């Protein structure tokens, strides 16, 4: 397996990068950490005319906290995992990163790459969806913000235009009395999940669910909100009864494809189990007992 030939460009600024994207459009692929693109090239599943390597675009290598956390696209998974700012502002992301491949993958893999690649079984798109995050996309035409719910459009597909570069992800501040969890089930350590579930929950003083966002990976072509389960939770007391109802609703509202790794019924079962487990953990964190 050898990579197909391509023209190789190494811009040093976002401006230069989007200029190249404007010139080459869908003939070009962005190379960040390479942990998805290089295998695709090696297997000849992708044969771009031009590879635009953004590893020298230092302005994409940032982590900052203003009104929410902003992580530059070129930030390595390992860098984000080790960042005190990410650990305090987005502990769900840190937990999810622990499931991304292995150390030698995360030293190269990037936050922007994982999100832009949009693998439906991957962790970061699921986290972005559960936390109600967004991405920044820049082209020669300007910069826009795209909400996670509008970004993922099916298997390895996003609403990024051919001339747009994903420059950063944004995660909103964590409300008071909120809790999170991230769980997934895979057959081997570091594999993509059969099903993964990210939960973000917000309670009031009395323990009633004010808001809940549940995102699942591996159950459809894109990260999937458990809308029925979220609705079942809102306004009800957080506890075993409402969590069981929500878990059943989550399992009922999805129709995952069967494949070599698991049947539809098995994945639905896993989703229900992981939603209930995740709600318990997120609720404990919201109450400060975990």
């Amino acid at each position, binding site marked *: 397996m*050898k990579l197909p*030939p391509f*023209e190789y*460009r190494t811009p040093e600024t976002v401006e230069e990068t989007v200029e190249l994207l404007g010139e080459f459009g869908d003939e070009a692929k962005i190379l960040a950490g*390479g942990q998805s693109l290089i295998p695709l090239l090696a297997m000849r599943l992708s044969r771009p005319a031009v590879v635009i390597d953004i590893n020298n675009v230092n302005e994409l290598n940032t982590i900052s906290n203003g009104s929410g956390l902003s992580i530059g696209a070129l930030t390595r998974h390992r860098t984000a995992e080790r960042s005190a700012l990410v650990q305090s502002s987005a502990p769900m992301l840190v937990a999810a990163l622990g499931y991304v*491949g292995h150390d*030698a993958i995360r*030293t*190269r893999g990037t936050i922007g790459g994982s999100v832009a690649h949009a693998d439906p079984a991957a962790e970061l798109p699921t986290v972005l969806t559960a936390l109600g995050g967004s991405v920044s996309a820049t082209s020669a035409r300007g910069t826009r913000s795209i909400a996670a719910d509008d970004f993922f459009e099916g298997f390895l597909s996003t609403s990024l235009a051919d001339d747009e570069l994903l420059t950063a992800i944004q995660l909103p501040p964590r409300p008071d009395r909120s809790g999170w969890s991230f769980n997934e089930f895979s057959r081997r350590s*570091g594999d993509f999940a059969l099903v993964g579930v990210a939960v973000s929950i917000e309670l009031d003083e009395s323990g009633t669910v004010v808001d809940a966002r549940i995102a699942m990976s591996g159950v459809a072509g894109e990260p999937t909100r458990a809308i029925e389960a979220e609705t079942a939770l809102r306004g009800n007391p957080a506890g075993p009864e409402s969590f069981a109802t929500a878990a059943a609703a989550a399992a009922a509202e999805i129709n995952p494809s069967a494949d070599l790794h698991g049947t539809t019924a098995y994945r639905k079962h896993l989703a229900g189990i992981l939603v209930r487990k995740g709600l318990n953990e997120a609720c404990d964190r919201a109450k400060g007992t975990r």
Partner: protein
Amino acid sequence: MTTTPTTQSVQLTVNGVARSGETENRKTLVDFLRDDLELTGTHVGCEHGVCGACTILLDGEPVRSCLMLAVQANGRSLETIEGLGSPDDLSPLQQAFRESHGFQCGFCTPGFVMTTVALLRENPDPSEAEIRHCLSGNLCRCTGYQSIVEGVKSAALALQAGENR
């Protein structure tokens, strides 16, 4: 469309030695190490980032050298298995692997050893669970995992006892 060269010169440091070469843009780092620099200690297995055989250290951090382009290593510092001990003078880690029978057919060995070098630098006293988690990114088709884990444990003890290298 403007034409750009399909090859580039690469200058890098490998195991403390300055090296250079001319490489096709599309050549992976592991192929460059093996074919151009004739450092064949780094093995190439799956060629898509799954098996871990080609793991090397890039500026001190473990990476899959099949998932990087050689041109991306320009200006960087690499460590490969050749930078550890020699057959007559094994490093404490290699010695510990050997004594634990952690080498079987040897194909996966360079990747396991370099992964362990990075682990023990960051965490000199890992628990067995931490060792197993760390090594879960490397595949051994002889399935000699028990003895590899034992090798890492005894290497950690040897290094703590001061056989630092």
